[in-house]
């Protein structure tokens, strides 16, 4: 290997190590016993143990990690799939018919620029009235709103990329709007839909603020539930258990991202029109 190339890899390795240090520290701590955590701050584990994971995965009176995982899964699915269902026809209508292009689209997209906390109090009161507090549906609906702007943006771009002749050809082939949308436009938006789903799911899974605010017991998501493990049996923070629960909580979105990574890029319209 040439020296320049070696040097480049060394720099990469240092940068990667520095940026991923918190992740590494958490991962390492999760495999240390509570005694070792207080004694040995290095990244080297003297006596690796699974006891922290055993603690996390055991159902106790107060803590049930499976319940939190299920709540997160349900809320994140609602929060990622619902925006796709709503945004897909909306994106088509905006691109092809111009509905809402001037006002609604910029407005929805700029929703992301607002700090969500300003909705907290009115939302809490609305949810209380509607009986949505501490329900998976209630949390999911809120997460859907959080994800809607991104879903709309991605799908508007995807629909705009489809050559309009394809839709004209479908009309000439006798297809009315529903068939056009579901047999031609929807399949061509697949990469954008997968991207929307993955990003939406990860955002929803990692959401903490509204999970904390809108749930108390029944619908507590993993992010909030994880914080319960920090101080298990009174006294100080149980760093080992806390690290293990963070690892468990981070796994589902991590796996989803890894599995879907190859599908979220790439274009569907190759070969549609000339070239």
């Amino acid at each position, binding site marked *: 290997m040439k020296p320049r190339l070696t040097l480049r890899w060394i720099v990469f390795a240092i940068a990667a190590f520095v940026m991923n240090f918190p992740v590494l520290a958490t991962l390492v701590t999760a495999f240390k016993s509570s005694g070792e955590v207080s004694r040995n701050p290095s990244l080297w584990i003297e006596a690796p143990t699974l006891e922290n994971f055993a603690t996390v995965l055991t159902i106790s009176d107060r803590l049930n990690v499976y319940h939190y995982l299920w709540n997160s899964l349900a809320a994140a699915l609602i929060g990622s799939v619902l925006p796709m269902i709503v945004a897909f026809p909306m994106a088509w209508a905006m691109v092809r018919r111009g509905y809402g292009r001037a006002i609604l689209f910029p407005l929805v997209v700029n929703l992301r620029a607002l700090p969500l906390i300003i909705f907290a109090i009115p939302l809490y009161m609305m949810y209380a009235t509607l009986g949505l507090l501490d329900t998976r549906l209630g949390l999911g609906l809120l997460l859907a709103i959080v994800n809607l702007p991104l879903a709309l943006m991605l799908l508007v771009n995807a629909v705009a990329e489809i050559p309009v002749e394809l839709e*004209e050809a*479908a009309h*000439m082939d*006798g297809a009315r709007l529903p*068939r056009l949308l579901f047999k031609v436009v929807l399949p061509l938006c*697949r990469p954008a839909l997968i991207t929307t789903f993955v990003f939406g799911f990860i955002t929803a899974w990692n959401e903490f603020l509204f999970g904390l605010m809108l749930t108390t017991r029944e619908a507590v998501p993993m992010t909030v539930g994880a914080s319960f493990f920090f101080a298990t049996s009174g006294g100080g923070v149980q760093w080992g258990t806390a690290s293990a629960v963070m690892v468990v909580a981070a796994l589902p979105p991590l796996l989803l991202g890894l599995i879907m990574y190859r599908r979220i890029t790439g274009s*569907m319209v190759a*070969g549609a029109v*000339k070239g």
Partner: protein
Amino acid sequence: MAEIRIENLNKSFGAVSVIKDVSLTIPDGDFCVFVGPSGCGKSTLLRLIAGLESATSGRIVIDGRDVTALEPYDRHLSMVFQSYALYPHMTVKENIAFALRTAKTPEAAIAEKVAKAARILRLESYLDRKPGALSGGQRQRVAIGRAIVREPKAFLFDEPLSNLDAALRADTRVEIASLHKSLAATMIYVTHDQIEAMTLADRIVVLNEGQIMQVGTPRELYERPANVFVAQFLGSPKMNILPARAAEGMIVLPGSSSRLAAPAGWGGLVAAGLRAEDCTVTGPDNGVLSGIVVVSEYHGAAQQLLVDTDACGRISAFTTADRDLRVGDRVGLDFATEKLHPFDGGGVRLA
């Protein structure tokens, strides 16, 4: 199969009028070609018939039914797009079957029709491929296959050959012509290529600036163009226009001492059209006109000259290649009166 009738059709985009009061009847089974320069409205007229654009005023009648207000999917027409517009996520088979599935045709009938179309268009070995894995010519055939399986009332072609290379274009042109013969269907074909128009058409519609210039068979249009625009649009090189006048029963050409008798009805003569192939190149002292060769192109079978006659402008003429005339040579140009196309001051044909 159906007759298509267009009555006083107008189309404006905002303040811009693209189609101006067009009326036209295309008989059942006709191969009709819309031809004209870019921006003449030929594609817009086709899209109006397809229903992809809505008319500002006027009527479109297909098979006796007023379809002006109908959406494209209710007009039962097939269209082949310039860009092919194949569904990229479907295989060739699914592309061809899409319209049949839309019409809820039984699967057995679909399989049979797709197989037949694939055989006609030699696509059998590509049926399970996606359009992205096909060449331009194969994509074009899939687009045609998609149009023919559904037995529409008429076929619309929007410059279908313009993305193919020259050799493939000639082959596909022949295929489309034989397809028309075997299907005996009404076809409307838009092109800017006059060779395609001349070779394919039963009837050519020449358009310019949103108006019909002339409708007729290729022979009628070439031999008796109704105006200077049509005369110069069809034919290569384009028709020479001489500043001729009629006086006392004679045709007067500037710079020429020859006297040609003017036929009856040529009184208002302002311009005389003359095709290059009707103009004989002679010795410098023999012709009706004389001039100096300014461009000489060797075509193999013939030689095309551009001769500067001074008073009558530059005139194109064909001669045999063995004469080997060069730039700067002085030549005479001869022609018969019956080969002249007489036009009045507005560019409209006389007699």
